[in-house]
């Protein structure tokens, strides 16, 4: 394997994302530093559009490093953040593994723009699959360096040395040994690593592949874990910002006298940006509603019912994502042709922790703590907005109370910094639930039209797929189709604004929509052909990973083939996301009198390559399946023009404990393969599996998520 590294001591002042690399070293004192570079094209491509534009030049940056301190503590500094997905545990396991140290001896330092090198953000299930291997490589390199040092210190050839629990020992003379700590003592060594060296063989793994409990659980069950909102600085005030009633409304006039009359409340104003602050949050809440503001409205003429028509008619950009064969020839060869249109609404992220930030400007330095998936993105935004320099803005990321893509947006951090600058006080901004819904960057509503055909052997003859505003993640055909075309229509701003509000990535961005459309269409064709839906898929598949997932999920479920609708209420769907293949079978009960659907069972099989932490991966799978019940059954943002009508958990219903189906998961044994994403894939196929199960139970076909009782009831009338 090619290595391209240079080793330096006391090396110069190469810039790392605007901060001099030396500054990390200065901050951390002595020890051994291994800088590494985990970027791959995949990571950048998987970024949300707006982050792609925001990202800094990455080519020459080393965006993470390991530090072996003089006391033997081994830390990994990374701009990635922990929001519940468990990487604080998963990445530490990989590091302990590679360095042969006890798991407890390794420390993750995450999401601090001053201590950690640049990282665009934590999303796209990339932490384990892209960042992980690079970190392993860096750890392996660190071990090689340490062994080299031990070799010269002990006067023993490197190949006679072995490492266990952070102690390097001569195999033939166990008395000759030296610890990592003693090697790092008094040293100041920096190494730069660009290319992956050989890392340990998976069969030798001590920790990887075994269940391991999360390191943050104790803090979280005792209330000790600190989230942004739990921080407090002397003199801190709570802020509430005056918000417009709808997107597209602009401030016409305002009267703040009512708010000013409340004791302990200060009104802050900078143009249209108006806020109230108080040391007492209740007072701020009381004051903000006393501000009388009038607005002018210029809203888009669209609502949650008309949006699908609006989207198809919108002036948009179209691009052919993939094409092969000849659609018209395929159509002529078909014995049956199918045309369907699928609708998917805006969906909210709805993390239980709302967007929160604490900001304090002190001696020219803006210190910000924020619940964000992108601390460096927030840092850049503050630099731009407040005309500061990167050196004077530091963003730290305490535990994040759920992100799901929603915290890739960081408006609250900019607002808190702005208020801190305006007032000179430490400002805590905890968005209300109302603000959280109003400013959420929703999963985009979308329309998918599929025209497809089959021949009398049950083989797919053509596939003409048109997707409006859902992009092409998950739009792969996956089946063997000779004639195919995928056309994607995206927003053409500023020529035509489609969305009245912000949109952005939602767990497995848009893959849910594309997988729903494809897998329901497949089910429609299978049913029409009179072929069992599993058999139909297997007939049309050559992708071995997909076939293996389908077979294993069928096995796990105890699937018995039947033509649909079989009245049993069983549905199948499959797909892939973030490099991971997944197949799911759902079983439902449908109350025909009300249209209410209960998902009683979901089985899922996943090929995610090497599984680093099976317990963590399983939890992510169960979480995905449970969370998926929301977009499948209830979650839909209602709106009128720019006014978001759902502003709380009273009308926007997320999956509750009583909805829980029996869940059976299989992770295929692929320890010899590189690790792939685990935080999103198994969410993608639940919608289609449930939709297909409803059809199997009742003969009613649903073309729109969520499959609410009203929609199911309507569909039942057509059967």
């Amino acid at each position, binding site marked *: 394997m090619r290595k391209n590294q240079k080793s330096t001591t006391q090396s110069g002042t190469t810039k790392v994302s605007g901060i001099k690399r030396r500054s990390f070293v200065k901050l951390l004192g002595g020890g051994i530093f291994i800088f590494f570079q985990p970027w791959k094209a995949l990571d950048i491509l998987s970024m949300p559009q707006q982050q792609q534009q925001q990202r800094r030049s990455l080519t020459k940056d080393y965006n993470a490093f390991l530090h072996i301190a003089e006391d033997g503590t081994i830390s990994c500094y990374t701009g990635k953040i922990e929001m519940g997905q468990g990487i604080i545990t998963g990445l530490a396991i990989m590091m302990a593994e590679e360095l042969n140290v006890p798991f407890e001896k390794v420390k993750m330092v995450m999401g601090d723009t001053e201590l950690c090198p640049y990282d665009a953000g934590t999303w796209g299930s990339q932490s384990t699959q892209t960042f992980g291997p690079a970190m392993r490589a860096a750890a392996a390199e660190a071990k090689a360096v340490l062994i080299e040092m031990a070799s010269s210190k002990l006067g023993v050839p490197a190949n006679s040395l072995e490492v266990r629990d952070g102690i390097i020992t001569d195999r033939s003379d166990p008395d000759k040994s030296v610890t990592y700590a003693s090697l790092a003592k008094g040293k100041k060594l920096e190494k730069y690593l660009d290319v992956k060296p050989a890392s340990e063989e998976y069969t030798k793994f001590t920790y990887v592949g075994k269940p391991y409990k999360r390191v943050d659980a104790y803090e979280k069950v005792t209330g000790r874990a600190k989230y942004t909102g739990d921080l407090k600085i002397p003199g801190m005030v709570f802020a509430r910002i005056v918000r417009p009633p709808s997107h597209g409304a602009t401030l016409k006039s305002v009267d703040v006298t009512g708010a000013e009359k409340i004791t302990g409340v200060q009104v802050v104003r900078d143009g249209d940006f108006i806020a109230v602050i108080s040391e007492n949050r*209740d007072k701020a809440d009381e004051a903000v509603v006393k501000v009388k503001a009038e607005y002018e409205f210029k809203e888009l003429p669209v609502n949650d019912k008309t949006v699908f028509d609006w989207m198809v008619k919108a002036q948009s950009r179209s691009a052919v994502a993939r094409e092969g064969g000849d659609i018209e020839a395929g159509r002529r060869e078909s014995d049956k042709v199918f045309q369907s249109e699928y609708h998917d609404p805006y969906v909210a992220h709805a993390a239980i922790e709302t967007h929160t930030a604490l900001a304090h400007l002190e001696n020219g330095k803006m210190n910000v703590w924020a619940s964000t998936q992108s601390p460096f993105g927030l840092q850049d935004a503050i630099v731009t907005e407040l005309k500061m320099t990167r050196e004077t803005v530091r963003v730290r990321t305490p535990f994040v109370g759920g992100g799901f893509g929603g915290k890739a947006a960081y408006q609250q951090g900019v607002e808190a910094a702005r208020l801190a600058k305006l007032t000179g006080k430490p400002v805590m901004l905890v968005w209300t639930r109302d603000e959280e819904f109003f400013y959420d960057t929703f999963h985009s509503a979308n329309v998918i039209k599929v025209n497809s055909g089959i021949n009398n052997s049950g083989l797919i003859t053509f596939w003409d797929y048109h997707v409006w505003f859902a992009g092409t993640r998950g739009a792969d055909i996956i089946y063997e189709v000779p004639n195919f075309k995928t056309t994607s229509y995206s927003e053409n701003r500023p020529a035509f604004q489609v969305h009245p509000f912000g949109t952005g990535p939602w767990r497995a961005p848009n893959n849910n929509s594309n997988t729903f459309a494809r897998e329901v269409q497949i089910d429609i064709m299978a049913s029409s052909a009179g072929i069992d839906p599993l058999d139909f898929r297997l007939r049309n598949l050559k992708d071995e990973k997909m076939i293996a997932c389908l077979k294993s999920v069928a096995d796990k479920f105890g699937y018995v083939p039947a033509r649909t609708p079989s009245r049993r209420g069983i549905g199948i769907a499959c797909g892939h996301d973030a490099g991971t293949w997944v197949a799911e079978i759902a079983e439902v009960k449908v109350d025909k009198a009300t249209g209410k659907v209960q998902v009683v069972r979901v089985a899922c099989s996943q090929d995610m390559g090497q599984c680093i932490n099976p317990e963590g991966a399983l939890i992510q799978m169960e*979480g995905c399946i449970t969370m998926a019940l929301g977009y499948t059954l209830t979650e839909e943002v209602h709106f009128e023009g720019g006014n978001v009508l759902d502003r709380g958990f009273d009308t926007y219903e997320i999956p*509750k*404990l009583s909805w829980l189906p029996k869940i059976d998961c299989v992770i295929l044994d692929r320890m010899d393969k590189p690790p792939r994403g685990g935080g999103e894939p198994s969410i993608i196929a639940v919608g289609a599996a449930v939709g297909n199960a409803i059809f199997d139970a009742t003969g009613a076909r649903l073309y729109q998520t969520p499959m609410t009782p009203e929609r199911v009831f309507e569909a039942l009338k057509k059967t």
Partner: protein
Amino acid sequence: MEEKIRFKLNGKKTELMTDLNQTLVWVLRNLLGLTGTKWGCGNGFCGACTVLIDDEPVRSCQIPLSDVEGKKVVTIEGLEKKGRLHPVQKAFIDHEALQCGFCTPGMILTTVAFLKKNPSPTRQEIMEALDENLCRCTAHVRIIDAVLDAAKEMKGGK
């Protein structure tokens, strides 16, 4: 207006001189530094701010401080006794019944109150008891397993 209030907080006699109209959740978090009680929606819908008042689970975002006069208030910080975790806390760790952890304190306290009333619950009863505590990371499977396990542990342990 500042007034005096006395109540028992996590087993300790507590006396405060403050505005009694303040919402309990902000008093706990901001005045008393007990930030384990989370603020999630302010409308009583999510359950993250749940505390125990005289052993009953109460949404602390929905009541003024004055409501706890003379009462026993227990927050997540008050469950651990002499460095020993409450069986429910322990079960949540053992079963990995959490991810981001933001709903966890409310979930655990609701469970503690529930198991006191129903020491031998069925899965269905657990689902119903915790149905109004929202968990967006959807650790549902593990939460139910943790509660079942804690119930077993508490019966055997006491």
